């Protein structure tokens, strides 16, 4: 049936990126194609190999390009939020938070304190969920399959909380400009407290399995070293940067959504190798749990959405009695709220690094330009520098430790 035959990858288009030994045929160009069990999504890597040793690595992205930036220009500000969940699909609440904070900065909208606290609790739970998937898939790549099953078991508890709050497990669209969509149900607190009670022992379980395991150490220590200067030159942020010794976490240095009220540490390691990144992320699991507990204890009462009716729709009960409420509702549903003719850049700390939104309005109801500064894009661009001289099996470990999500890269 197939009219395809084995083809050698021509060196021609990549001549400026590979060494001269590839042109002469001494080294081999191998295609680690878009469909591969350990590329964490559809990433294509062109490897120049001398035996098993990697001389050069050329990533080829764009296999998941969705045109989200252009598609968001065709929708109103509120409707465009639906697309933000699907960017970095491990960090749905975080993407919503980044977009909603950008819109609020652009139109200068206040958020009530209860909504801020709920945003913090859910974003930190999402961070825990994202790190659990990272740990599970890293284990799966390095053939530690029971870690995968344990992590996904914990993740189901978090997804149940998300479903209770917003109706959806993954694509939540729960944060809206002005606050959150609706108040949390009464079972929310009990569910989160139950999670806080059982999770620390589970983290101990993962650490007991992996942290001092000689197989894990062998595959991770000294592999993929990244130093701080190269990292900053290449725009690396997040746990990858903190594993190189640079203490930069947007939750501490530029606090947003009320993070300054909570007491937590930012784990920083100095070695910069794959094992340091593993340690940083596992410790972040514990710190995020601390933040969730503090925020839940301090959760204030009050409204969950701003009452600025130019941007936030009135409750249904008011529409029957108040003329202004009816007019505001009509205006928001037909045209949507308008933003000034200006541009802002607003960034949050996602589990992968600095997630920034460049939002430009043009006086109308639709955004003129939305650009997503996604952390995985820059984190991946540094990989061609850190895999040189390693074996192909080490490449798998390094790729797992960068924690990339292709939806983030290709948008």
């Amino acid at each position, binding site marked *: *049936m*197939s009219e*395809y035959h084995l083809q050698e990858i021509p060196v021609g288009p990549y001549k400026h990126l590979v060494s001269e030994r590839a042109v002469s045929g001494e080294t081999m160009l191998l295609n680690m*194609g*878009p*469909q*591969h*069990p350990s590329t964490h*999504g*559809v990433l294509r890597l062109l490897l120049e190999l001398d035996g098993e040793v990697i001389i050069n690595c050329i990533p080829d992205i*764009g*296999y*998941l*390009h*969705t*045109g*989200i930036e*252009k*598609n968001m220009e065709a929708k109103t500000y509120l409707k465009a939020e*639906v*697309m933000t969940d*699907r960017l970095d*699909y*491990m960090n749905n609440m975080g993407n919503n938070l980044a977009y909603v904070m950008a819109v609020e900065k652009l139109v200068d909208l206040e958020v009530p304190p209860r909504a801020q606290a709920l945003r913090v609790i859910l974003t930190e739970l999402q961070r825990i969920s994202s790190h659990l*998937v990272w740990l599970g*898939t890293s284990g799966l790549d390095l053939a530690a399959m029971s870690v*995968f*099953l344990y992590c*996904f*078991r914990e*993740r*189901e508890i978090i*997804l149940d909380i998300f479903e209770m709050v917003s109706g959806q*497990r*993954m*694509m939540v669209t729960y944060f809206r400009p002005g606050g959150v969509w609706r108040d949390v149900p009464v079972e929310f607190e009990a569910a989160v407290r139950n999670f806080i009670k059982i999770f620390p022992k589970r983290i101990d379980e993962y650490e007991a399995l992996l942290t001092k395991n000689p197989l894990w150490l062998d595959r991770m220590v000294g592999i993929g070293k990244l130093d701080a200067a190269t990292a900053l030159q290449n725009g690396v942020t997040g746990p990858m940067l903190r594993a190189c010794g640079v203490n930069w976490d947007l939750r501490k240095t530029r606090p947003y959504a009320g993070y300054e009220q909570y007491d937590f540490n930012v784990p920083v390691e100095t070695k910069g190798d794959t094992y340091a990144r593993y340690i940083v992320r596992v410790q972040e699991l514990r710190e995020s749990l601390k933040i969730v507990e503090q925020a839940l204890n301090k959760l204030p009462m009050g409204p969950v959405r701003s009452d600025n009716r130019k941007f936030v729709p009135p409750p249904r009960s008011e529409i029957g009695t108040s003329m202004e409420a009816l007019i505001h509702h009509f205006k928001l549903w037909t045209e949507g709220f308008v933003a000034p003719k200006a541009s802002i850049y607003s960034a949050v700390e996602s589990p992968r690094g600095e997630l920034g939104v460049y939002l430009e309005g043009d006086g109308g109801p639709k955004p003129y330009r939305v650009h997503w500064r996604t952390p995985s894009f820059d984190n991946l661009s540094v990989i061609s520098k850190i895999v040189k001289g390693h074996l192909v099996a080490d490449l798998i470990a390094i790729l797992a430790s960068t924690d990339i999500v*292709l*939806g983030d890269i*290709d948008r």
Partner: protein
Amino acid sequence: MGVEEKLGDMGVVTTTLETAVNWARTNAMWPMLFGLACCAIEMMSAQAANYDMSRFGMELMRPSPRQSDLMIVAGRVSRKMAPVLRRLYDQMPEPKWVIAMGDCASCGGVFNNYAIVQGVDEVVPVDVYVAGCPPRPEALIHGVVTLFEKVKGEKFADLAKA
């Protein structure tokens, strides 16, 4: 004096060849790893401990197309990825089935633009569509069970003609 009375106790089952072959095909269908985007995470959740797909014979997700018979297209297919998808489908040996998991694979989903193939049935013929964005693991399992019903109803005459 039917067959049951003669053979009742001997533990021998009689059936047609079609039923036997279809039963064998459904009991150990190996899916090919084709997780592209968000639906892949729900597919992994369906494979994990809470919603176990190994109960349906799908213990292993084979990354190699030559060793699998079911392709679950989980996620959005971009224009750059479409030729790769077709190539992998061609490399799978007969008999093969395709499940289009999620809205993006069924009809383009939320993304009605230049970059996404509007429904993966423009590239490969699809047997079962599973709706949802992303579909819950239970929905995926329902889709898989629907595919099993379809396979159990297949006749050799139809397959030989195609």
